[in-house]
């Protein structure tokens, strides 16, 4: 049985891309792990949908009476340089291209970079939040999710079947078995979990995989 990476490790693969001054929005679901262990050696500016920019780490425990929260509901510390604004100003930043990285959970992602993450199969109702704007307009849209669903079905697919949140928007997918770049309709494996081969990953993937010219085993070095 091949081992899958724990989400804490996947999060490190994502966050090591952040550079000083990058503006980052972390979605709910698995991207939370990026927030739980933010990179310590770079000065990242975290954005939250309701008009919060540059907040500090998640607080645990939460001091009595503390109100500062992210859109995901986590209580966070204030941080020098932080600023507040309205929802329209917050999404003017998003649509205007001022978010360097958004990391979103997903139900399905496909080889065209389409993202489906707001409506579960068989439901009438959805939770779309700010994902359409973030996915479409961030400079880098990353998906972070398990490679397969709880019942083992592929979440990386050739063509999404669930309603799309945003079209042709995903740049990279970080799963518990691989890092894939979505480029020109190809799903290119850049990194794979230790012990896994391209064939192993292809076996649990709904999209045709291609090895990136720089494909290598995941390493935290």
């Amino acid at each position, binding site marked *: 049985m091949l081992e899958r990476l724990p989400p804490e490790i996947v999060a490190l693969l994502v966050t090591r891309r952040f550079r000083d001054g990058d503006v980052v929005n972390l979605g709910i679901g698995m991207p939370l792990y990026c927030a739980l262990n933010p990179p310590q050696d770079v000065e990242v500016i975290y954005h939250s949908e309701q008009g919060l920019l540059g907040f500090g780490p998640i607080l645990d425990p939460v001091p009595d*009476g503390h*109100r500062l929260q992210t*859109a995901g509901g986590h209580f966070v510390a204030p941080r020098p340089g932080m600023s507040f604004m309205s929802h329209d100003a*917050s999404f003017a930043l998003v649509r205007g291209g001022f978010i360097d990285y958004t990391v979103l959970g997903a139900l399905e992602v496909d080889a065209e970079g389409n993202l489906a993450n707001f409506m579960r199969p068989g439901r009438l109702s959805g939770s779309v939040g700010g994902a*359409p*704007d973030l996915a479409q307009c961030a400079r880098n849209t990353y998906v972070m999710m398990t490679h397969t669903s709880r019942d083992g079905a592929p979440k990386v697919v050739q063509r999404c079947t669930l*309603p799309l*949140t945003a079209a*042709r928007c995903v740049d990279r997918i970080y799963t518990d078995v691989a890092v894939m770049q979505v480029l020109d309709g190809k799903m290119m494996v850049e990194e794979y979990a230790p012990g896994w081969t391209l064939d192993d990953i292809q076996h649990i993937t709904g999209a045709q995989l291609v090895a990136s010219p720089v494909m290598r085993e995941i390493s935290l070095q």
Partner: protein
Amino acid sequence: MQRRGEHPVINKVVPSFDEAVSDVNDGASIHVGGFIGPADWPAYLISALGRKGAKDLTVACCNMSGIGPIAREQLAGEEALRGFTGMAGTGMDHVTVALLIERGQVRKGITTFSAPMRGSTGSAFESMLEQGRIQLELVGQGTLAERIRAAKAGIPAFYTPVGVGTPLAAGRETRTFDGVECVLEQALHADFALIRAAAADRYGNLVWEHPSSFNATMAGAATITIAEVDRLVDVGDLGPAEIEVPGVLVDRVVVRPPVPMKSWREEH
């Protein structure tokens, strides 16, 4: 300082929440601020609208998922309803627009969240939707915020690249600008906006001490904007660069009592 000594001539302060919403009739369209924390919701205004009982409302609100206080009482007893002070630890135990949904007052919701959040106990909206008793217009937060901002800014319609090729933009016209396909979105005006702010003066000038979210965005995007505030200050106490929403966008101000809010059942 007032221009005519003891007799202020602009005074938007209304003495009670019930009076503030007394002209919200059946069929009205309403913007409701609030999103995450209890302290960002106009809880007293929502409760007053629940008491008033106006029906067939069209409500635009960022988050319409979750359960209302009635279902919550049934689930967890009255204790879960206390502590509406908007502080950490109260979780979802506060009055949100879900109250109006579970009381059957809402005909249509325009929102970014109608499904239950992961780990939450349910969504009044989704139950009503399955029963065919409510309509849903699901919108992304950026488009919702910009449509509401457009309404107050006198912009009838605008193009955005967001939503192209998804069901969220179904039925919208599309057009390409600089090689990017965009959809045409229309301003979203309402009859009333119910919002929450930290402080106001009698002019209706508003300030926040936390992100103002949809509360500032909705101010002025309705024929009547009603602000529920934690405290009233004198005109001049708010500095000119500090005021986030000028009073000309606000029609009524109601001040929250300093004691914790009672539960829906206690009060009715």
